[in-house]
């Protein structure tokens, strides 16, 4: 296939061989893990900073203003300046807080989002670990974040934080269902939970085109549920600025707050990249039927660009939602999940199974 | 209803009432004991139907205190001013109208806060603005109120 020019598998194997030839296999594995860890940390920081900047610019344009434009050209260093500010800020100690849990909470949140990153295929060959149950792993790990939120709310010894955390608990636990079911709809089509297989099987046609109506509905539901799961947009009840001042992270300051902040954007990135991987074909270029010339041109765009581009579009969608809609109330949030998304989702799975069974897809 | 007609109606309700005219609305001057019964009958008489208490304000005169009630009828659109005289400035007391007009609840708390007029039978007679400060700061809108620090005479 044409995109083999961008295949990095051989490069990975070459690195692996090189390391194994100079040291024992155990040390080689440890070195590899360390390299991957450093790369992911860097990636995490860069993506987090970029997304904060992007969000501020996008909401600026939506709101008839220009957004940050003072630090550096077009304000691109604004988030770095903010980050330095957050690093230097005082960590306000809370007297009656449960110190251990209070300090633990931001790490749980940030670790949960980082672990999920491991299973994302960025391009052919750029894949930290290719589980055969990749989707299952991502779902399991990313839902760990709610523990961090609950801990943060509980240990702050603040009434607003507690309400925010409880809201968040109810919200994430119930929206987990919709996320799972909508991904399940897609998995019926693929017959696999392995992310690399899922991407490969979309080589000719992305799922959202291949599975047409049921896939589109599943994508919509996934977007709604995933936005809710990241505590963003119209579903930011856990923070609910105008009701609970800042919800579960009211008492956090400085770098601990930065952790929550970074984790929020990272979760958004994760959710968007899962959507891109499952519904929009991950790093697969856009191919249309037998238009060989067109397909060839598309193949020359590197897979990493495809992947990041798709993720960026989905993130932009989520930001667009956030800056347009008012916030839901907690009972409406649960009504939306249990009375609308869940029944539609179950019906959608049936339709999808029928489509696959009868071969009505492309 | 014109002021003259109102005057006759109210005279029938309360023969001891005095009237002060000259403003655009009729002013009834009554002693403090009559206020609740007058307001009740004003509200309940169908052709008067004063159901809207627009404003309630306390006044500190040199030798007495007074509470002004500005009433409007949302049905007939006529207005009436009641001036209830409290003859003493020491521990003044008057009956509340907050059971007839809910809005009087806050207004009367404000008057208690600033003038020290106590409203009998009020459900919640506390200071409304100055409750956070202290109880012994007195009643600052009285004319004899002294505060060397915050009031600057010019």
């Amino acid at each position: 296939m044409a995109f083999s020019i961008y295949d990095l598998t051989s490069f990975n194997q070459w690195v692996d061989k090189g390391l194994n030839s100079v040291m024992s296999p155990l040390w080689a594995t440890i070195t590899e893990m360390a390299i991957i860890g450093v790369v992911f940390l860097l990636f995490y920081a860069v993506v987090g900073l970029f997304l904060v900047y992007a969000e501020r610019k996008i909401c600026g344009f939506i709101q008839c203003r220009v957004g940050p434009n003072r630090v550096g050209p077009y304000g691109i260093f604004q988030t770095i300046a903010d980050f330095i500010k957050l690093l230097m800020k005082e960590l306000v100690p809370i007297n009656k807080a449960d110190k251990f849990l209070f300090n633990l909470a931001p790490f749980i949140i940030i670790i949960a989002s980082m672990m999920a990153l491991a299973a994302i295929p960025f391009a052919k060959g750029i894949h930290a670990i290719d589980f055969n149950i990749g989707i299952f792993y991502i779902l399991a790990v990313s839902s760990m974040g709610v523990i961090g939120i609950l801990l943060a709310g509980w240990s702050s010894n603040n009434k607003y934080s507690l309400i925010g955390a409880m809201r968040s608990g109810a919200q994430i636990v119930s929206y987990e269902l919709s996320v799972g079911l909508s991904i399940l709809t897609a998995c019926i089509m693929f017959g696999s939970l392995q992310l690399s297989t899922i991407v490969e099987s979309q080589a000719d046609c992305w799922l959202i085109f291949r599975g047409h109506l049921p896939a589109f509905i599943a994508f919509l539901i996934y977007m709604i549920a995933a936005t809710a799961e990241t505590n963003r947009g119209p579903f930011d009840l856990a923070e609910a600025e105008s009701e609970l001042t800042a919800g579960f992270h009211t008492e956090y300051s400085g770098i601990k707050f930065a952790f929550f902040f970074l984790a929020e954007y990272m979760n958004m990135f994760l959710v968007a990249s899962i959507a891109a991987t499952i519904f929009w074909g991950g790093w697969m270029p856009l191919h249309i039927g037998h238009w060989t010339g067109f397909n060839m041109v598309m193949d020359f765009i590197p897979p990493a660009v495809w992947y990041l581009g798709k993720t960026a579009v989905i993130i932009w969608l989520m930001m667009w939602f956030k800056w347009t809609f008012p916030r839901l109330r907690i009972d409406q949030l649960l009504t939306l999940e249990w009375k609308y998304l869940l029944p539609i989702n179950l019906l959608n799975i049936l339709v999808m199974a029928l489509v696959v069974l009868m071969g009505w897809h492309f | 209803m014109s002021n003259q007609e109102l005057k006759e109606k109210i005279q029938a309700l309360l023969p001891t009432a005095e009237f002060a005219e000259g403003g655009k609305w009729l002013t009834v001057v009554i002693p403090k004991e009559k206020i609740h019964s007058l307001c009740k009958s004003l509200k309940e008489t169908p052709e008067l139907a004063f159901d809207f208490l627009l404003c309630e304000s306390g006044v500190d005169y040199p030798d007495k205190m007074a509470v002004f009630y500005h009433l409007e009828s949302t049905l007939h659109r006529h207005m009436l001013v009641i001036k209830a005289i409290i003859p003493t400035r020491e521990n003044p007391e008057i009956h509340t109208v907050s059971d007839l007009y809910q809005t009087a609840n806050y207004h009367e708390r404000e008057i208690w806060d600033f003038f020290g007029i106590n409203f009998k039978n009020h459900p919640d007679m506390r200071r409304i603005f100055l409750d956070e400060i202290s109880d012994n700061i007195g009643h600052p809108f009285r004319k004899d109120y002294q505060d060397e620090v915050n009031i600057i005479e010019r």
Partner: protein
Amino acid sequence: MNVIKYISGIFKGIISLWKGLMVTGYYFVHPGEIVTQQYPENRKELKMFDAFKGEVTMPHNENNEHKCTGCGICEMNCPNGSIEIISKSVISEDGKKKRAIDQHIYHLDMCTFCELCIKSCPSKALVWGQEFEHAVYDRSKLTKILNKPGSTLMKGVE
């Protein structure tokens, strides 16, 4: 019936959300609609309206003369004591003793820009200045003396 209501509810909801998205989407793709001003950069072009109430000033002409007679009407009219007038007596040309202004002290930090001093001035000695960048590090800098040192009363103003 309920099913129809349920489904139409979903579609109506989606349409109403789409309408909102179109409004924000329109502004996102039309950067020409941006209304914010880039303040310190546009300081040169930034011109306040003629009537703008920046601060009270006392215009002086080229001979360092003003119109203030020191009558004290502005001080009397000021609701919060932001004007203080210190007068002195001078001997005029024809040998008479006359009251004149020594210092017209204006406390900008207390001023509420109610315009009563300017409106009540009988000799029109005070006007609004257009200055609006009043931020200083020391509050005492906001106390200004409006008549310039050595200035005298303009001829013909009583």
